[in-house]
């Protein structure tokens, strides 16, 4: 399934962080999460939307998000995800790690 990579390849592990971050805005369904990531990144980050679902399962298994079936804005059944307190903590952890990571890369790139 190597076709149609993201426009900008996501750094490994960042999808989880992005999902957690978008969920800080309240409870959202899968489609909304994908839309939001794309919009916020000003269309730079475009994920293969199907990959969202294994990620959501992973987060749910770890207890960082909760899923609940509900009705969407246009009156359709959808599953809404919310951030749990553990998820919020995890977001901080991942943000910190991301900061260190990008900082390190920036330093390397700056010295050249």
């Amino acid at each position, binding site marked *: 399934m190597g076709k*149609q990579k993201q426009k900008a390849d996501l750094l490994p592990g960042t999808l989880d962080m992005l999902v957690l971050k978008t969920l800080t805005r309240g409870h959202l369904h899968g489609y909304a999460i994908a839309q939001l990531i794309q919009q916020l990144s000003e269309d730079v980050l475009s994920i293969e939307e199907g990959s969202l679902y294994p990620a959501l399962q992973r987060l749910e298994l770890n207890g960082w998000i909760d899923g609940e079936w509900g009705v969407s804005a246009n009156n359709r059944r959808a599953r809404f995800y919310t951030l749990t307190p553990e998820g919020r903590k995890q977001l901080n952890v991942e943000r910190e790690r991301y900061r260190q990571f990008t900082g390190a890369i920036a330093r390397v790139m700056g010295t050249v």
Partner: protein
Amino acid sequence: MNATFERLRRRLRYWLHQSERQRLMQEEMQLHLEAMAVDLIAGGMPEQEARAAARRKFGNLMLKSEESRETWIARWMSDAAQDLRYTLRTLRRDTGFSILTILIIALGIGASSTVFSVLNTLLVRPLPFKDAQKLVWIANKTKEEGDLSGQTLQVSLFLDLRKHNKSFLDIAAYFAFYGVGDTVLTGNGESERLSNVPVSQNFFPLLGVQPQIGRYFSPEECKWNGPKAVMLSHGLWERRFGSDPNIAGKPITLDGQAVTVAGVLPASFDFGSVFAPGSHIDLFSPFPLSAETDRWGNTLALVGRLKPGISLQRAQAEASVLGVQITKAHPKKNGIDPKIVSLSQHVAGKLRLPLIILACAVGVVMLIVCANLSNLLLARTAARQQEMAVREAVGAGRYRLIRQLLTESLVVTGCGAILGAALAILATRGITHLTAFNVPLLSSVRVDTGALGFTLLVAVITGVLIGLAPALQVAIRPLTASLVQRGSSETRGQTSVRGVLVISEIAFACVLLVCAGLLIRSFLHVLDVNMGFQPETAASLRIDPDRRFSTQPQQNAYFDEALRRVRTMRGVEAAGLADGLPLGHNRSWGSPAKGQVYTPDNYPVSFVRVVSDGYIKAMGMSLREGRDFTERDTPKSKQVIIINEALARRLWPRQNPIGQIIQGDCGGDRQVVGVVGDVRHIALEQGSGSEMYIPIRQCQDWGTLDLVVRSRLPIAVLASSLDAQLRPIAPDLPKGGLRPLTDLVDRAVSPRRFIVMLLGGFAGFALVLASLGIYGVISYSVGRRTQEIGVRMALGASTGTVQRHIVTQTLALAAAGMAAGIVVALGLARWLSGMLFGVSYGDPLTFLGTAAVLLAVALFAGYLPARRASRIDPIVALRVT
């Protein structure tokens, strides 16, 4: 930690609602796709194009959903679960087949686990003592196996050996001539005969057996005429003393005397099972190592503990040298020539060969089981060729198919193993209760973790082995061919594989049958041996006189009265007394002819029995010359003796022994008044040695007293009337002591019977499996060739021709298997020689018999399908295409 637990909890919840969650996930993704499409359409894209674009952007839905599921359940797990579900469905569809295979495996695994448990207990597991591998058995060297007097040691010589050696931490001893049921316990309920073994003070400390309650014997108690003390076995303590925790130090009454209980031994200590298989010991008393006991002659059986770092060989070398020195230092005593073996070898040594043979036999049975099931499964895979092809066509990987087949065979063997383990547990339970069997340590045989591990291992190996052939079939066959071809089909290669499997089954069964046949023939020969006495319609009862009758006249009066009372009973043909019965304990004394000079190597020694008149007749022995004893052979009359033919030949070859004189141990010179036939005193398999009989009224050197009665009365009737007759003169007579003499023989042949039973069972099982194998292959080939047979019959073949054809095919298989089996059996049977009696390992009768049995079974197994074939209606057969 907590997070891990939470994850596990969520996982479990997912597993429980797996299919529901899976469905919801799909729905969610579907909704996502639709929302994408709707947005694109709203942006002005045509609907079809929009949907395609959405799907492109989303990626492979199936794959993502699989991936999502894998978050919760590892791939291999869900695959395995699927295989398992499928397997169970297949097995349920084919209930008969599944039950048959599971049963076959269960029997095979049950048998091998049982044999493993026995083997483990007798040969592998250390004896139940501290540091048991350091323990050795020290016996005197003797020419005659089983001659107890020759193997034991005199007290003073033992003390010397113990003092001067440098190889042993210590050497302990027990009194080898203890009598079973010698001691009478009174008070606290009915009087009861108990078995007491006198032991040296250091016996229990040496073995590392700690009393559960109380203490070891004190040095004071181990002196001649010291304070009386005993240690109780755990069983007696529970049974007679209600597990009284304060028993230590209390007196109990034994043989009318107060004796202090020093302690109680732990339940784990079972003297009988190690030192005297098949017997039960209740008590232990201290054996004084004093000048008095020294005069008793050879009495001690020795157990030693090697010092750390000292090998058996070194200890033996030193002991041999010491033996010569000690013998020189005591020229008047019996001499010592120690022979040292490890205690475990002493205990299980004689059983090593039979047990290894049993283990091999059970291994062969397992091989047959595998061959048989492999065969059955092969037949099924052939029938399932199409199913496999379909599954492959819709995308199942070949690897997955093979795994499916292996899962199936592992599930079947798994079920079989569980059932087999249950069978093994039942069987070992049964074995521990075979108290009548003269086999050591049987009571401690159990299915332990080792045995369960072994069962598991066997199950897995079996599962893989039987699944391998069908799996390989799948691996190498182009399955698509099966899709094209309608109907079940079998390649030539597969047919030959199955033929080879059946032939090897028959060969293995043949080997087992030959071995079992040889052993059964030996067993029959042993039973057929002329023992020198007739155990049928005779019974024995312990009637030791009351301790109050201590003088010889008192005792002789008791003998007279007892014999008179018994002989007046209706239905009693003969009655006599003896100090011991054949095939039990024995002792031997010197028996030189008066006036002869012998070298030490040549000095005649004979088994001795102290008996009354009537004993010879009651035992059914034959009086060859002279007369029996009479009640007039008393201390005041001439000292007489009866000898057996072997001793007569030995002392006075080609002369008339009657009237000759033997210099005996008890009462000096004795005149031979009679010659009797030889009696097998040690074992049925072992020829008789020199034997002599001394009249009980002339010799007080006897320990116990058995009454032998010959009568055709039923044993229960005899027991109650004997009890009524003897109770007035022997009030302490315990109830239920009357034993038929056939018990003696049964006990003596019990180890042999044990092996014969097991091996015979295995051979029978193998035979059934082999015949199933033949039947399976032939009936399968008949089914496959229905059309061909139909054509033949349409063209004029008679039912006879068709039957003959198929029976010939069967016989060809059987003949090939038998040929291979007989060649192998001829090679292997040599190993059995040590266990054979009266037959040679190449015994033609056994081989011919085996061949006949196998042929008959093969004919029968082949005849059923042949008959079915001959009833094929050509029209029906040809129409079915």
